[in-house]
């Protein structure tokens, strides 16, 4: 692109000599117009789809959030910020926020370290490690709905596989009502989420570990660093970009969690496993209070947006530098 804007040293003198200077200039202008038209031509179809199917509905949801609207016709009953004030007085929604926080903390404190440990273990020379990698990654490939059905059967009280296994190894006392118990439903759900998603994060870390140069670890070894020191001071810092991305995906995933919960518990028992997306679905598609549901979606979107922007600005900035096109003046 730069060449278009730089003076062409070879044609420069020619332009001065050939009397009507217009010809090459017109050629350049035409080329620029052509370039521009090509760009537009390629972008229009995607842009139309993106605006029509993503941007407009989003704007419409934002608009609908200020109405009491049942989904029939166009919204007309303007209620100002009522939906939002109601939202933040709703125990279920406040509970959603709390549970979302709990899930994020649990994921970051347990699931990701577990995935990291598995990745480090499987990065060693190990018999059949390809098989292990595949096995641990397999749950991620399953659809959420299938996972949900599977685990509601496994954790069925008394009759489920979990209770049978625990009973047969003499730990029957641990088994209980699993998803049916308000105090344990989140723990059980987190167990399923870990089973489903740790393999994905493990794969990310494995890929990251592959790019840690062996010479560095070797050098540390020669300098007398123990295994923990090598991991802490060599591997981990070099893995940091991967970790940061994995944390980002994990947090966004927690905020938007829907299908697993919907299939397994529908948010129950008594709202104890409800997430923001589940509440939104309940109001939008079961109660037909679409305005209120839109308000929930707007808040969810807001949380995701603020988090994503802040995270990119403060945490990912270093990783993204160079990876994306910047509009820096020097163009180098």
């Amino acid at each position, binding site marked *: 692109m730069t060449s278009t804007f730089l003076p062409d040293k070879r044609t420069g003198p020619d332009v001065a000599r050939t009397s009507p200077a217009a010809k090459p200039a017109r050629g350049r202008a035409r080329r620029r117009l052509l370039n521009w038209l090509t760009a537009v031509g390629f972008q229009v179809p995607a842009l139309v789809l993106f605006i029509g*199917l993503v941007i407009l509905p989003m704007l419409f949801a934002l608009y609908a959030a200020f109405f009491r609207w049942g989904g029939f016709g166009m919204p007309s009953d303007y209620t100002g910020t009522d939906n939002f004030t109601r939202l933040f007085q709703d125990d279920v929604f406040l509970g959603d926020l709390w549970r979302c926080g709990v899930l994020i903390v649990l994921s970051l404190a347990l699931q990701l370290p577990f995935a990291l440990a598995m990745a480090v273990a499987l990065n060693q020379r190990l018999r059949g490690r390809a098989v292990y990698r595949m096995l641990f990654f397999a749950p991620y490939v399953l659809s959420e709905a299938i996972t949900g059905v599977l685990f509601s059967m496994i954790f069925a009280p*008394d009759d489920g596989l979990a209770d049978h296994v625990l009973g047969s190894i003499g730990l029957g006392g641990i088994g209980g009502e699993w998803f*049916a118990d308000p105090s344990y439903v989140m723990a059980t759900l987190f167990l399923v*989420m870990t089973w489903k998603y740790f393999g*994905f994060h493990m794969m990310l870390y494995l890929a990251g570990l592959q790019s840690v140069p062996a010479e560095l670890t070797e050098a540390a070894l020669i300098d007398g660093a123990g295994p923990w020191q090598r991991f802490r001071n060599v591997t981990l810092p070099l893995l940091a970009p991967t970790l940061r991305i994995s944390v980002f*995906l994990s947090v*966004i995933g927690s905020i938007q969690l829907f299908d697993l919960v919907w299939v397994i518990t529908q948010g129950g*028992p008594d709202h104890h496993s409800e997430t923001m997306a589940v509440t939104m679905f309940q109001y939008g598609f079961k109660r037909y*209070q679409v305005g209120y549901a839109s308000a929930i979606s707007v808040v969810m979107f807001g949380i995701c947006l603020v988090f994503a922007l802040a995270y990119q600005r403060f945490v990912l900035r270093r990783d993204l530098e160079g990876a994306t096109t910047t509009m820096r003046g020097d163009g180098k």
Partner: protein
Amino acid sequence: MGDRALSRRGFLAASAAAGLGMTALSACGGDSDGGSSDGTTTIEWWNISTTQPTKSVWAGLAKKFEAQHPKVKIKIVQLENDAYKSKMTALTASGKLPDIFHTWGGGVLQQQVDAGLVEDLTDRTEPWADGLLSVAKQPYLLDKKTYGIPFDIGMIGFWYNKALFKQAGITTPPTTWSGFLDTVRKLKAKNITPIALAGKEKWPAMYYWAYLAMRTAGIDALQKADENKDFSDPGLVQAGQHLKDLVKLQPFQKGFLGASYSTPTGQAATMGNGKAAMELMGQWAPVVEADAGKGLGSNLGFFPFPAVDGGKGAITEVFGGGGGHALRKGAPQAAVDFLKFFASEATDLELVKKTGVLPVVPAAESALSDPNTKAVQAQLKGATGFQLYLDQAYAPAVGQEVNDSVTALIAGSKSPEQVTQSITKTAKEA
């Protein structure tokens, strides 16, 4: 938690798009104007009979009608239950409904009537509709006008395991709530799980509160509460207290709060496999019990929901609902003829025999053979009052809130007063 970000965002957008979609869909409303130059009238018939054998039986009936009326063509449009509901929502918004369409009556039909989209059938069907089972017509009777003709009717009641009752020394099913609580105690004493309940799905829990409310406060109170958006009637609070008395006995199966209705570990299977003594469910219960579990065969019995001492309602008042057909405003006479044909004794006999519905034409009773179905039919025939399923009678938000609050009561997180307060609050917001 994986890279679900993209698809989740897609989901969010889709939810928002649903709003736009509805508006867009309205543009493609049916072009259901029949009539062509050669004098044939084409009638569109929208129904939800997508499963066999009903699907082919209904298609056969349409053929039969066409044979009797050479100038009429029937175009059947079949949609699965949920798809039908959303499509109808869009069509209602667009202001044009199909000639003949499936309806459950109650709140949704009322909405369509209020929008001026439904034909008043009171006079046009009077001569022949009089003979139909009176409870079956209730859901479509709005402001004393007939807006639909039933083809199916059913009700909720207790299904019980005779063998388990015998084991606990119970000879006759209870007829009062205190007697019912005694029954539960006797079963518990023998280590039998008294009741199977699908707590995850909430609507089966709502049945208990609804019936108790009918028995204590009465049907009128339930209707008045909805009209006035005020559910604080002391009788309705009392209903919650009676339910709480039952919950205190811990009558439900282990893990009932997480149980579904028709899955292999759900309510119907628990009942069908003989692991619980009772369930409060509709006339379809025996079929689902045998499908999800083993089924109880002749060990299965039916008894109506008990009366509450000192309450306003009688044991003969039923809670239920069914299926019917309504016509769009200005539908051709052929559509009325079809409704008449569909509610004739010959058709109903075929429907009862082949598709397992309960008869709406009293004479079609002869096609019933199963003693339990006969018991349900007898209860329906002798009904002195009728209340439509609350989630169909009320606006969707109110219906859902009833389900939600009653489940919370059973889970122990809401008091009977809080249940009525929550429902009132939702009714006022909706």
